C-alpha cells in the first residue's frame, strides 16, 4: 500500500487537497489549461507520484522545459513510467466510442499498477473534448464523471478534468459542475456548491 498522505499539492493552486480529489477546471483560454496541466504534473512528479495526462494539445518541449526548471527530466520520468501522456481520443474514445466502464477499469488499473510499482500516489489530468457529445456512448459522460467520483473514494487517484467553456455549451457546463465535487475558479480550488453526490446523481439522472 502506498503511504497515504493527508493532502496532496495540486501545483496550480495554493491549497492542498485530499488524495482522491476529483476536480473540474472550466477554462476559456488555452494558456489557462496548459498552465494548470503542467503545474499539476510537475507537482505530482516532485512528490514522487506517478502522473498521467490525456490531452491532444501538449507542447512537449514546453513541458520538458517546465519540468527542467525544477530539475526534473521529462525523458527519464517517461522512461521510468513515472510520467505518461496520451491523446484524449486515444484514451477516451478507443474504437470510436466512449465507454465509461472501460475508462473506470483503466483508472483502477492505473492505480493498481502505480501501487505495485511502488509509487506513493498517482494523479491524472485529462481534457475532455466536445467530440464526446457526438460519438457513441457520449451521452454517458455525466454518468462517467459521477462514477469517477465514486471510484476515487476507493482508489485515491487525484484527478483533474479540464473542460473548454468555448466548446461545450452553457447547459452542459452546468451539468459538468454537478458531477465534480471540487472546482478551480481563478486559481482557487473550491468545494463545488452545485455538486450532487454520485449516489443521488446516478439515481436521478442515469436511471
Amino acid at each position, binding site marked *: 500500500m502506498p503511504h497515504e498522505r493527508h493532502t496532496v499539492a495540486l501545483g496550480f493552486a495554493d491549497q492542498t487537497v485530499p488524495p482522491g480529489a476529483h476536480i473540474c477546471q*472550466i477554462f476559456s483560454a488555452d494558456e489557462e489549461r496548459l498552465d494548470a496541466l503542467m503545474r499539476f504534473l510537475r507537482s505530482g512528479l516532485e512528490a514522487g507520484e506517478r502522473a498521467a495526462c490525456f490531452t491532444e494539445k501538449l507542447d512537449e518541449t514546453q513541458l520538458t522545459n517546465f519540468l527542467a526548471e525544477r530539475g526534473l527530466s521529462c525523458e527519464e520520468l517517461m522512461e521510468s513510467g513515472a510520467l505518461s501522456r496520451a491523446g484524449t481520443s486515444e484514451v477516451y474514445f478507443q474504437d470510436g466510442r466512449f465507454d465509461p466502464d472501460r475508462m473506470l477499469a483503466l483508472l483502477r488499473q492505473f492505480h493498481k499498477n502505480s501501487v505495485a510499482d511502488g509509487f506513493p500516489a498517482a494523479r491524472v489530468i485529462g481534457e475532455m473534448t466536445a467530440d464526446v457529445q457526438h460519438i457513441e456512448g457520449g451521452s454517458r459522460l455525466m454518468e462517467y464523471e459521477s462514477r469517477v467520483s465514486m471510484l476515487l473514494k476507493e482508489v485515491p487517484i487525484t484527478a483533474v478534468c479540464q473542460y473548454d*467553456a*468555448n466548446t461545450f455549451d*452553457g*447547459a452542459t*457546463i452546468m451539468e459538468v*459542475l454537478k458531477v465534480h465535487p471540487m472546482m478551480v*475558479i481563478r486559481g482557487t480550488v473550491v468545494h463545488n*456548491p*452545485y455538486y450532487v453526490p454520485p449516489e443521488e446523481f446516478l439515481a436521478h439522472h442515469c436511471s
Partner: protein
Amino acid sequence: MSVAAAVDVRVLGQLLLMQSVVASLPDNSVVPFIIKGLGDVPGVGRVVFDATPLDKAPHRFRLAAGGKDYGTLDFSVKDAEAFAPYLDYIRNFAFMLAVILDERWQRRAIELHGQHLEQQVVERTADLAGERDTARRYLDIAGVMLMALDRDGRISMINRKGTQILGKPEDALIGTDWIDSFIPAARQSALRQAFSRVVSGATPLPEHYEQRIVDATGRELIMAWNNTLLRNKEGAVLGTLSSAEDITERKRAEEELLHYKDHLEEEVAQRTVELALARDEAQAANQAKSDFLANMSHEIRTPMNAILGMLYLAFNTDMSPTLRNYLSKVQGAASSLLGIINDILDFSKIEAGKLEIEEIEFGLDAVLERLADAIGVQAEKKHLEFLIRHDVSLPPRLIGDPLRLGQVLLNLCGNALKFTETGEVELSFQRLNASATELTLQISVRDTGIGMAPELLGRLFQKFTQADESSTRRFGGTGLGLVISKHLVELMGGRIWIEASAPGQGTTVHCTVQLKIAPHDEAQRRDLMEQVGPLLEDIRVLIVDDNEVSRDILAGTLRQFRIEVSVAASGPAAIEQLKQTGEPPFDVVLMDWRMPGMNGDEATRHIQADDAIAHKPKVVMVTAYGRDDVLKLAEQAGVAGFLVKPVLPSALLDTLLNVLGRGRILRANGNGRPALPVTTAEYAGAHLLLVEDNEINREFAVGLLHSMHVEVDEAENGEEAVAKVRQHAYDGVLMDVQMPTMDGLEATRRIRSLSTADGDRFARVPIIAITAQAMVRDREKALAAGMSDYLAKPIDPDRLAVVLNRWIKVPEERQRAAQAAAQRQAGLMAAQAAAGSLRADADLLALKHFDAAQGIPRIGGKPEAYRKQLARFRKHYPGAADELQELLSYQGLSAGEAYCHALKGVCGTLGANALFACVTQIDELLKRNTAPDPGHFERLRELLQQAMAEIDGLAAPVTRRRTALLDRDGLLAKLVRLDWLLQNDLGAAEELLAELRTGVAGTDAEIAIAEIAEDADVFAIDAALDRINSLLARVKKKA
C-alpha cells in the same frame, strides 16, 4: 419577523460560482448556462430567457446595461416561499449578469467595429449617464441596501434603500468614507486594515457577515451583508459591491428572546432563593419554637425550684398540722408541675434533635438506688410493693448514660405506679446478647394495675396521648413520658414495647438498651466472687415475706451467691421453721415488716423470746417503709440490720456480711474497686510475722497491716524468720519467697519441720507466701514447700484482707481489744469510707510516672505515707540502673537478679508501672541467665530519671489536711448525683454541695463548685446544671 426566509448558503455559493464561471464562458453559452443554473434555485420551476419587454410580473428580471436591453429572465416559481429568500440575490445577480452581458457586447462591438472604436467610446461615454440612470432604477427597486465602495473605501454607489437606512441623501453619501462615517469608532481601525487586505488581494472578501453600523442620526443598526469584489476586465480589484439587510429588529427580537430566556433562568434562580429563604424561615421558626419551649421551661423551672426549696425549708420548721397538710399538697402539686415542665423540656430537646446520650462509666446499683428512693416513697404512699428483680450476672460497672437510663426507669415505674391501685410493681432485668464488651439489657416493668385494651397499645407512644382521654383527667401527666422514654431508649440503641394486655389484668412494659461493659469489669466480678465466696460459705438464710414475688426475688439473688435459702410466707411460719431441729440453724432471717396477721417486728420479738429457738439468727428487717416509727419498732424488737425495699444485691450482701461480722467487702467505691475493710474483721488483733528483705516493701506491708489492726513483727530473711517463729507463737507468717541468706521456701520447710511440745503449732501456723513470681509453678512451689496460701506482689490490700480472713483466726479476747482500738480510728476511716473512696492529695494523683490511686491503697490508704515512700525511693534508687549494671558486671547474674527483684517489688508497690514493666523485663532475662543489652539499661535509666524528677517536683510531706480531697471518680460521681438532686431534691442537693465544697477545697474545681452553690442558693437551677455539665466535661477531659 419571519424566520422561514432562511437562505441556503450553498445556493448563494452556486450563484456566485455562476457569476465566476460566466466570465469564462463564450457569449453563446452564458444564457443557457445561467438558465440551467438558476433552475436549481429553490422554488424555481423553470427559467426562460425572453426578449420580451419587462412587465410588472414579480419574477421577471430585465437584463439591461449600457443602454442595451439584453432581454429578461422569466422565473416560473413553483414554490414562492422557498424562492422568496433568494429574490434579492437573483436581482443582484441579474444586475451583475446584465453588466457582464453588456461588457461582452461592448467587447464584441469593439471587435466587430474596430474602425469605429473612437466613436464607440464617445457613444459609450455619452451613454454613461443614461446607463447609470437605468442601473439606478434597478438598484432602487431592490428591497435591500446595495452599495459599492471603491478601493479607498469611499461610497461609489448606493441605492435608495441604502440612503433610507443610512439617513442621508445619495449626494451626501457618494464619496464619503464608509468606515469613518458609519462604522462605530471602536471597530474602525480593524475594519480599515481588513478592507485594505481585501482590496489588495491579500485576504478574500468574506461573503457574508453581520456588522453594526451607526446611521446619520447616531442610531446603531445591525446589517447582514453579502459581498462581492468588483474587478475590471483584467481582474484587478476596483472595490466591493455589497447588498445589506437591516436586521436590527430581527436581532432585537432574538435578543429579547435570549433575554427572556435568561430572565426565565433568573426567575427560576430567584424563586429558588425565595424557597430556600422560606425553608430557612420555617426552620428558624421551628428553632424559635424549640427555643421558646426551652426558655419557657427554664423560666418556669426557676420559680418552681424556689417554691420547692422554700417548702423544704418550711417543712423543717414547726407548724400546725393543718398548715403542714396544706403545704404537703402544695409540695405535691409543685413536684408534679416540675415533672411536667421537665417532660416538656426534654420533648423540646427531642424535637430540636438536641437530646444526646452520654457514655460514661456507672454502676447500675447507683441508678437503681436513686430510682428506689424516688419510686419507693410513692409506692409506700399507695401501699404498693415496689420490687426489683436483679440479675446478678449483670456487670456492676457499665458504660452508658446513667441519668437517661434512670429517667426511663423512673418514667416506666412511675407510670406503673400511677395506674396501679393494689398489688405490686416489679422491675426486672435480663441480660441479652452479652459479649465481653457489651450487652443488651432488657428491662421489664410489670404492674398489677388497670391494664389496657389491645387497641390502645399502638397509641401509647404518640405525643400527648394517654391510654384514653379519660386517663389524662384521672391520672394527670403530659402524656409525653412514654414518647420521651421511647426516644431515649432508641438513642440507647434499643426499643420499647408493651406486652399484650387487657383491662384489669395489669401491664408489662419492656424495653431494651445497649450498654458497654466497663473494662476489667468481668475480672473484677470474678475477683469479687472469689473474695466473697469464702465469706458466704455455709450461711443459711430464711426469707420471710407474704409477697411471693418479693420472696422469690430475694431467694433468687441469694442463691446466685450460692447461699442456702429457705422461705416462709408469714411470721408464724418462720418461727415454726426456726424451731425445727435436725437442720443446721439459720444464720440470718430477712424479715418483711408489713405482713398480714403478724408484722415483722412482732415476729422478731417472738424469735428473740422463744426459747425453743436455740440458735438465734440475726434478723434483718426488710421494709419498703423507711419511716422512723418502723425503724424504732424494729430496733426495739432486736433486729441486727435493715434493708429497704427494693433490695439491691450489693446492699443485701453488704448487710449480710455486716450483721455476721464478716466485714464490708462489697460496697463499691468510685472506681469499682472494693473498698478497704473499715470495720473490724476476724483477723483484727492478730499478731503476724512479716518476712521481707527489702526495707521499703517491709515498711509498706507494716503500714498496711497496722491499718488493718494487725500487730507485726519483722524479719529480714528466712533464717531470722525461722528463729522468730520458734520463739513466738504468731497467728500467721507473711513470707517473702526470694530473699538472701535463706529464701522463703527453705524457711517454710524448716518451720514445718520444727517439732514442738505444744502440739502442731509449727505445722498449723498459716504461712502466706508473698511473691512477685506470680506464675503458677511458683505457687505450686510455695504450696509444695508447705506454705498455706500466696499473695502476689505488689500487695493488694483487699486481697490481703481476704487471705487473712481466710487463714487467721484470732481469739475473741484479742478481737475485742482490737475493736476498741479500731473505734478510736473509726472517725477518720469512716469519714473516708463515707466519702466513697480512698483519698489522695491532688498532686499525687496528678503524677504521671506513679499511679498513686494504685499505690496509696497498697500502703494503707495514707497519702502522706505514700509521699514518704516516694521520698525514700528517691533517696535509695536514683542510680539503680548503674548499680544494677555494675552488680552484673562485677558480681555476676545472681547478685544482679537479687537487686533487680527488690527494685521490681518497690516499683510495683509504688505503682510506678512503666518502671515495673521495664524492671520485670530485665528480671525475666536474668532468670533465663541472659544478660540484658545496653538498650534495657538505657530505658531503665531514662524512666528512673523521669520518675525521680517527678518526685523532686512534689511538695514535701505536709501536715494532714483537715478534709480529704475528692479524687476524680469521686468528684464525677458526686457531680452526677448533684445534677439529679438539683432537679429533684433541693434539700439533699444542699447537703451534697456542702460536702463537695470541702472535697474540692484548694483544687481547681473549687471555684466552679462555689459558683454552682451560689446558683443553687438563688434557685437558678438551670444555670447550676449548666455549670455542672461544663465542670463534668472539664474533669473528664482532664483524665
